[in-house]
């Protein structure tokens, strides 16, 4: 994100600082803003590293016993692991049925065959740094991997919603007239349905028809196709304001086409609105992803996100295993707080007229 802000648009003849330079300067003075930017950057770096498998690549390995205790609670009793171990021991047939069992003569042959297959049973750890889940997976690695998916879904759907909203808003604001009427009608339709119901209606269709793609594609599409309305309204207002300004008329006079005026002349002047909205939407979508995944309409069951972690945590809490809940809940809370504070600071820095 800082890379974007570091490269202001080409300097004018007078060398007066551009919108982005000024915004960046203001943001740098804002201590809360810079601190939250740092936190967000750390999370983004974590997301990229985990995407390429540099960290938490082995989150799926079952390294500990079931519900392994966190290191600082090493002495606590772990009934679940004991009962699991007990089950494994009792697998041997307790009664000798060889005289009536028709398969008995072949048992030996099968046993020998089994021995040929090398099984490297790893010694499962009793404790993990922050505990383990039901299958003995490291909760911290799971939270990192979950962060990757949750943040990626948030950013991808945020970007798509901003692109849709900005494009439609530009169309409505620049052309006005019939185009505006049509898009306003569209906007009214989407906003007259309660937001959560709109999401669920899209989710129902996505789930039943499978036409929204596979993996995390459906949830990205659901969130962005329903979430573009707010930014559409803001960008439309900006385009209405800008399309009559002198610089746009000047562009027209030197023969700039409509498309060029819309996206090369006006867009850079309103893009700060999009950036603030992107930040705000991403926070909202991360929260929404968690809830949708919890309900089972979000990311597929074989991947892990903060939402799927929380849905496991509900049953774990009852048997006293609180670590997964804390790991997912706390990492999400930190990111959401930092992102919301960053949104406020970005708004202050880029649009000082607003409160």
């Amino acid at each position: 994100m800082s890379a974007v802000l570091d490269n202001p648009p080409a300097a004018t003849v007078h060398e007066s600082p551009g919108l982005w330079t000024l915004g960046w300067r203001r943001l740098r003075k804002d201590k809360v803003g810079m601190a939250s930017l740092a936190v967000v950057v750390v999370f983004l770096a974590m997301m990229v590293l985990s995407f390429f498998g540099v960290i938490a690549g082995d989150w799926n390995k079952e390294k500990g016993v079931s519900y392994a205790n966190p290191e600082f609670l090493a002495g606590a009793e772990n009934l679940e692991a004991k009962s699991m171990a007990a089950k494994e021991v009792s697998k041997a047939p307790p009664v000798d049925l060889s005289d009536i069992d028709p398969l008995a003569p072949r048992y030996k042959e099968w046993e020998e065959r089994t021995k040929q297959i090398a099984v490297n049973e790893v010694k499962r750890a009793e404790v993990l740094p922050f505990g383990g889940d039901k299958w003995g997976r490291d909760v911290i690695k799971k939270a990192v991997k979950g962060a990757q998916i949750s943040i990626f879904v948030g950013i991808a759907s945020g970007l798509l919603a901003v692109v849709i909203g900005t494009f439609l808003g530009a169309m409505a604001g620049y052309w006005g007239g019939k185009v505006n009427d049509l898009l306003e009608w569209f906007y009214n339709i989407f906003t007259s349905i309660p937001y959560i119901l709109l999401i669920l209606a899209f989710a129902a269709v996505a789930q039943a028809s499978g036409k929204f793609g596979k993996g995390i594609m459906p949830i990205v599409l659901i969130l962005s196709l329903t979430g573009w309305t707010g930014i559409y309204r803001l960008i439309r207002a900006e385009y209405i304001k800008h399309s009559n300004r002198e610089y746009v008329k000047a562009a027209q006079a030197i023969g700039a086409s409509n498309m060029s005026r819309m996206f090369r002349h006006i867009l850079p002047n309103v893009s700060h609105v999009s950036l603030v909205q992107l930040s705000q939407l991403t926070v909202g979508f991360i929260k929404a992803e968690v809830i949708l995944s919890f309900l089972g309409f979000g990311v597929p069951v074989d991947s892990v996100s903060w939402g799927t972690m929380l849905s496991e945590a509900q049953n774990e809490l009852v048997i006293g295993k609180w670590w997964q809940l804390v790991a997912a809940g706390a990492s999400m809370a930190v990111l959401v707080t930092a992102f919301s504070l960053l949104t406020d600071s970005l708004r202050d820095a880029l649009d000082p007229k607003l409160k």
Partner: protein
Amino acid sequence: MTAYVIRRLWQMIPTIFGVILLIFILFNWVGGDPAQVLAGKISNKEQIESIRHNLGVDRPYYVQLGIFVKQVFTFDFGRSWSTNEEVSHIILTRIGPTLTIMVPVLIITSSLAVMFAIMVAYVRGTMKDRGVMIVCTVVMSVSFLVYIIVFQWLFGFVLGWFPVQGWSESFWKNLLTYSPLPIMLAVFVGLAPELRLYRSFFLDEIHQDYVRTARAKGVSERKVMLKHVMRNALIPILTNVGIALPGIFVGSFLLEVFFSIPGLGREIITAVNRSDFPVIKAVTVYLAIVTMLINLGVDVMYKVVDPRVSFK
């Protein structure tokens, strides 16, 4: 005024038609053939054929749209695909439990938020104000899911102050035994963002000239805040409550799922899980219409709150 209301109602028609069209495109076109959607869910072939026939799947799209429009205006969406219950019956029986939870939530949250907001706005800039704002930010950062899981576990499971979940036939038992915990949760989570928002509405008013004038002529602080400032800040607050109002019909579906409340929200989640399209279609269309009517109602309410507002 009457002319205004009639014109607003007239303007709703294209939007209602648009909502119907959107739902139609989504479920009948993108959603695809119910025979495919229901494969594996309903084993009875005749039943699927009758559903296909009722929807007119074998006929052109405009006929199907006509059938859908007729369904909307006759309040007859047929039967649920999974339970065979009448859709209208589902909606009518599920709305009660949802409102039992959500009406108290809306009233308690709004009044507490207004009360706290005016108190915090009055001491703006002090440590108290900052402390409350920081607490609000922290509270807002934790997911609603985490609160439900922890509160249900703590108050229901560990302390046993409230039943963990459940619902009965009697309204009073529901309200007094089963509702308090979900209501408390929703109020707790809803309070922080509303308090922050309403505080900013009060702060907008508190610096106005009329406040200074009122003070200059010797009006008591109490009266300045509760009469002058409050009345003016009520306009944006009303807008905000108006936006939240349609939501009480869907309810907090998460609460209904966690606490096994047989409300509309849980019904929708179940319907999404079972691909029970008629239920989702009906609820979406009717709630969109209700939302539009509520918006109109709020706009009329402005006139009551603020005599300066005139209808164009």
